[in-house]
């Protein structure tokens, strides 16, 4: 499957005999047949058509592994040296296909059915009922709206991270110490953070942050009582863990800018402020957009802190989509509906991110430049 245009050229004179080719084909189709047969046998046994003593679908897994191995061997048998190249990406591809594509197809099946794991009756197809239920579910829409707020907060995180990166890139003493100190929050588990900060430091009576707030003159500090404040608190905790991430990416970008450019702007008499806005910032745009995009992707998965600190409260004000679906499953075992919500979320994300990338692309490479 590897062919022309390789960066690494290898001249090979493989002479693959007809017998070897037959053996290779046999290997692929034979193992594929075996896998199909295993699936069919297990499926039939499941529905009670044939008698087969099996506890679970493990044999299907082994059959897939066997087929994958045979496919790999067959590549070398069939294509010789060329086949050895496809062995580089074959394992990862087969792994991702098995772990993502197959479950996603499966998820589509679940999403359009009424399936509650706690009720005795199994799964039943119910068409678009789940979609209709979603349309009228204020909590889901609320969670989506919260995700917009949470995502918007990234701009503030970005500004802070950029400021810190500028300081770190400037001429300071003890840079290594500060870099390690600033990096540490990223290493901490969100669950531990939600206890450390959310449950103990923000505890209204004894927590140090509550004490500090009282000292500042906030009489009765409560960080999770009021919806707006609760959301802001969650944003801050999440920002605390992830600012180092943006900080490091921006810092790497800053250090890649040639010094001469900034010096030239200084020689030309630009003030530090103008030098930043007209030289450094525009040069940093590509890095900034990458950092923001990755941060958005991580932000869209936000759940751990919310699940552990507020469980979505008060009144769903802090719910993210993930934490909402998590509770939908844990409290109500509603697999069908939960999966539909997740799939709708995935579609929304893909559309939004594609649109964002298209916009950025058009903005960064304006048409008139290409003529």
């Amino acid at each position: 499957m590897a062919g022309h245009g390789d960066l690494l050229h290898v001249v090979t004179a493989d002479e693959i005999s007809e017998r070897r080719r037959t053996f290779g084909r046999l290997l692929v189709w034979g193992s594929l047949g075996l896998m199909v047969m295993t699936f069919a046998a297990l499926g039939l046994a499941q529905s009670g058509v044939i008698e087969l003593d099996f506890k679970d679908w493990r044999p299907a897994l082994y059959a897939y592994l066997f087929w994958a191995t045979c496919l790999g061997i067959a590549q070398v048998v069939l294509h010789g040296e060329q086949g050895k190249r496809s062995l580089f990406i074959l394992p990862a591809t087969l792994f991702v296909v098995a772990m993502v594509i197959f479950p996603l197809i499966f998820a589509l099946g679940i999403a359009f059915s009424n399936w509650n794991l706690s009720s005795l009756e199994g799964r039943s197809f119910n068409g678009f009922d789940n979609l209709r239920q979603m349309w009228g579910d204020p909590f889901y829409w609320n969670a989506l709206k919260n995700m917009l707020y949470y995502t918007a907060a990234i701009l503030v995180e970005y500004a802070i991270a950029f400021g810190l990166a500028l300081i770190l890139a400037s001429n300071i003493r003890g840079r290594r110490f500060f870099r390690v100190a600033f990096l540490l929050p990223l290493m901490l588990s969100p669950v531990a953070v939600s206890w450390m900060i959310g449950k103990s430091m923000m505890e209204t009576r004894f927590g140090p942050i509550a004490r500090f707030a009282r000292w500042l003159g906030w009489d009765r500090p409560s960080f999770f009582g009021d919806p707006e404040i609760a959301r802001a608190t969650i944003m801050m905790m999440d920002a605390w863990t992830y600012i180092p991430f943006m900080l490091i990416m921006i810092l790497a970008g800053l250090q890649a800018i040639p010094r001469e450019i900034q010096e030239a702007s200084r020689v030309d008499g630009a003030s530090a402020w103008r030098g930043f806005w007209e030289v450094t910032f525009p040069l940093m745009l590509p890095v900034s957009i990458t950092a923001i995009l990755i941060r958005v992707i991580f932000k869209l998965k936000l759940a751990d802190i919310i699940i552990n600190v507020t469980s979505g409260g008060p009144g769903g004000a802090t719910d993210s989509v993930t934490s909402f679906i998590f509770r939908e499953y844990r409290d109500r075992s509603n697999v069908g509906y939960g999966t539909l919500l997740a799939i709708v979320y995935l579609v929304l994300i893909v559309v939004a991110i594609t649109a964002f990338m298209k916009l950025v692309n058009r903005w960064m490479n304006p048409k008139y430049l290409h003529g």
Partner: protein
Amino acid sequence: MAELQIFHDSDVDLRHRAKHFTGRVVIYGGLLVWTVICLFPIYWTLTTSFKLAPNVMQGHLVPFLDFTPKWKGWESIGLSPRLIGQESTVREEFLKRFTNSTIAACASSILALILGSMAAYGLSRFQYRFGFMRNSDISFFFLSQLILPPVVLALPFLVLYKQLDLLDTRIGLILLYTLTVLPIVIWIMRDQFQAIPVELEEAALVDGLSIWGAFIAIVLPIALPGMVAAFILSLVLTWNEYFFAALLTSTDAKTLPVMVASQTGSQGINWWAMAALSASAILPLIVIGILLERFIIKGMAAGAGR
């Protein structure tokens, strides 16, 4: 001893120095404030694990000065000088969770590193064609997995794992974790391999190595720093993972974050115990962070700057 000063700073120069000085103050002030913001929660957790109820309630902050450190918090997970020699069920429970976390994180990071390095190397050196999929499509296929929110996979996997009898097993967790960090590994490693000149491998091929031989003997050792970076980043993400672990494990394969989460509600003002548990969950990564900071930054910077 009054001496005659010959050279005088002019007023303009003095003003410049004053401005420079205030600039320094602002910069170091900002640095210090952010350092406190970053480190105080860690400091607070570590010290609280040595506190007793009165210390917590009176808001004591500095050990030995404000309060006398006590091992009570660490005794609640069976790790104190007094209990270390004895049988302890809580410690066994804790160590079991700790081992689960370690195995799941290390195994999935290694697996992702193997699969990811191979794929990244292939993509950076050869042109593939799978049907309509070219190299850029295959790269996008791998990297786009990053967008996939875990919640989409969580429920199907719950059902699938039940069918496959993989629920509440480490293997199941390892497979899923590998999937979540694979795009990151491929992203970092592709960058690494592209920076290695092809001539090196050509020389190796001339010398009689096969492409796989050249990959293992020549390319991988050069790319080792990048691999360490990718490994540590994966380790951080998988060690801290909570969502899948909370859904897919119950008794056998439960990991440390799930244990921490399950205790948060029940402990009440029992802060010392929670602090000790949280501290032990974050300490391994803090140590890694301090020792291997260079690699982590290198790994995360891979996407930037280019």
